[in-house]
């Protein structure tokens, strides 16, 4: 970021952090690097401190007046040639003002190959949540998606880019599958056995874990963004506006409402159907399923799973199919937005 002018606070997210563990001797961080949001968790696993930042940006043409306005409002931005790049949570406000969509450094769970600003913006967003390590080599666990058929080799590039950046900040990075992270965060009592599902902005990730060992991981390259874009296209509204409506008012237990609401119901059903279908296919193919007589609990996490009624619809779709194992309780994570980061923190804390 040497050629850029960075402004704004280092941590502009919703939480707070001190950069130190309770003992003060070591820092362990769990990081959920999601398409829509980056979430960090630190401290201990019982009451971790979490923080988040929108993984998005919005650029406006450079002018002295614009720059002055951004500085006055303490809006995080940097200048790149003749553009001013507003990043993180603030980018969404600007998108609303201009009735346009934010841009994303990541798409479908990995660095967005069609976005030239991708790496710079992602590193800038990460810098707001990951301080320079005080002790070189501190462990930081970050989430990675399972390879989807269409993102296989690009995933390696995505992961290595993040690893290099984190190493540059003085950490030892540890990659944790996103679905498994959900299991680590929520299924300790069950001996880390069960199915973790993270429905994020860019994709849905699933891991079947037996005693913390991932025996099956899979992903679907559709998530909340797919819903927003699909609904936006059919109702002729910007995806950003659809996203705002989805997050504020959507209730999947109630049919009806306006055409945006109806379209959201349709595309949520479509997403759930696809996810269950793909999981079914993956389960049929794998020779690695655990031989466990106990019902497998299922945890749902991620922003896309948050609307009221999602759990019920998902469970109904799930139980409509045949599975070679018993389906146990299907429940929401205690905090769906931070589950992946908290699970990554558990992995980081468990490592010596």
């Amino acid at each position: 970021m040497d050629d850029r002018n960075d402004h704004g606070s280092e941590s502009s997210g919703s939480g707070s952090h001190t950069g130190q563990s309770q003992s003060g001797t070591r820092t362990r961080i769990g990081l959920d690097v999601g398409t829509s949001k980056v979430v960090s968790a630190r401290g201990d696993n019982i009451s971790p401190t979490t923080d988040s930042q929108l993984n998005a940006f919005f650029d406006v043409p450079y002018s002295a007046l614009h720059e002055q306005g951004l500085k006055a409002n303490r809006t995080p931005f940097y200048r790149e040639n003749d553009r001013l790049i507003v990043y993180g949570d603030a980018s969404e406000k600007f998108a609303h003002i201009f009735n346009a969509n934010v841009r994303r450094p990541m798409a479908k769970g990995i660095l967005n190959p069609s976005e030239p600003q991708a790496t710079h913006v992602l590193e800038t967003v990460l810098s707001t949540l990951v301080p320079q390590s005080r002790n070189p080599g501190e462990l930081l666990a970050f989430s990675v998606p399972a390879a989807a058929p269409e993102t296989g080799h690009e995933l390696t590039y995505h992961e290595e880019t993040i690893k290099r950046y984190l190493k540059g900040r003085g950490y030892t990075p540890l990659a944790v599958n996103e679905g498994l992270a959900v299991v680590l965060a929520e299924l300790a009592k069950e001996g880390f056995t069960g199915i973790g599902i993270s429905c994020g902005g860019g994709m849905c990730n699933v891991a079947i874990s037996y005693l913390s060992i991932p025996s099956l991981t899979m992903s679907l390259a559709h998530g909340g963004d797919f819903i927003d874009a699909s609904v936006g296209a059919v109702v002729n509204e910007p995806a950003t506006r659809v996203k705002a409506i989805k997050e504020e008012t959507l209730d999947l237990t109630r049919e009806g409402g306006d055409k945006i609401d109806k379209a959201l119901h349709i595309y949520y059903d479509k997403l759930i159907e696809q996810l269950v279908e793909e999981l079914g296919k993956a389960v049929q193919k794998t020779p690695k399923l655990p031989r466990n007589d106990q019902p497998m609990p299922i945890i749902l996490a991620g922003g896309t799973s948050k609307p009221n009624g999602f759990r019920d619809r998902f469970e109904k779709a799930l139980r409509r199919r045949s599975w070679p194992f018993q389906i146990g309780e299907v429940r929401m994570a205690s905090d769906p937005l931070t589950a992946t980061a908290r699970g990554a923190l558990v992995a980081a804390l468990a490592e010596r």
Partner: protein
Amino acid sequence: MTAAARGSPTERYRRERPPVSRECGEELTRITDDIDDPIVKLRYLQKALNEDGDKSALVQLVPIPPARRAWYRLKGLRALDAVADADEEIAERTLAARKTARRVVVGASAAAMLFVPVLVAIVAWQVNRWRSEPEQVASVGSSTEANATAIEATTAPLSVPTTLTTPAPVEENTPVNQPPVAESLADDDVGIVPSMLWLADRGPDWELYSNGLRIETAYTVKGTPRDYRVHARDGKLLPTKLDRPIGILFHTSESDLWPLEPGYEKELRKGSEALLRFVKREQAYNYMIDRFGRVYRIVDDDSRANHAGHGVWARGDEVYLDLNSAFLGVSFESRWEGGRTLPITRAQLIAGRNLTHYLRQRFAIAPEMCVTHGLASVSPKRGLIGYHLDWARGFPFKAFGLPDLYAQPLPSVALFGFTYDSEFLRTMGERWPGLIAAEQQLAGEARQRAISLDDLRHERQAEYRRWRAELPTPAGDEPGLANRNR
């Protein structure tokens, strides 16, 4: 487990790996149940599963399950000690778990020390007995006959073929009303059970699977690809087109059966061969199991066989009407006679169980989707159940590790108001619990809606016809082999 399979420390939370065996998993779970702290629990599991994994292969070679379990527990305890040694606080937090694990290991070792001499003594006594009474081998028939009679008198429709006995003939006054649960096989915890099922070997005309299942493929043909859709209970035809089997339908071949005795080799062989040729020509089943337990794949798994005719089955919210496409047809060389299915052989039962295990794993088939033809078959024209009756009673669900579907409300009755006639009752003797439950369900609904049961039946039959008409490939003709077999 190799080091690569276990994964390097940086890969262990992201790379898929084969799970540990059920026994190992259960022992580790027992230990972790006593650890409250998630971090310590995870650290322990990672230690136990990642760094000590090479010995797992050795443990799996131990033939006695309790000894394997004790060894797993011991390994688990060592891993726990290693985690505790590294940190005093953790040592404190895992104290209870370590105490319990240690007690169990000491107890198991003591039991083993007592057990081994007893086992050796029993084996020695048995060997001595065999040596001193060689002529007993020739008289096995009488004891087996006694066993067979005992089984017959209790519950089981299975026969145990031996070279010296003939199956007991079905007496005319034998009660046809037999309980639907067959004799269970002995628990299968004797001998090593592979943790996974895979194709272990294959030749030009056969496949061998890791559970011992051998499938003969010389008769295999390709048929019409599966292509079907499923209704939801609310009547909506679900949009997804399916091309993989979702269940198993068990049949009997309704063919002539020769006595399993020396002197009938030629008839038995010719009978089976003729049957296989017929089944192949008619594409009647996906699998045939002959009386010696040989499993033949006839119509390949991706193709529909003409085995089900008109049938109805349901699970959860889904209703299946095209059973030829949705179900694999597995037929046992046997026959429905005198109000029951004639006993299958133990070899057929073991082969059928292994085949079911293989098919369920390969196609992720739910247990309640392993059904018998007699339970699903209907006559749409007459609105009656039981058009075919093979395995309408007596299928050994329990021995197959499957739920007793004779107890589940019969979907054709509960959903579509199918009924039965006096001939059905005469043949079956009495209704089975699932049929009674389905009728009660239907009657309850009629009461609730304040309409007559007949009106409700008419309405449901019309629904059934409408649903069937919607199917892209309506259920095919009745198979040539299994003509109406009351």
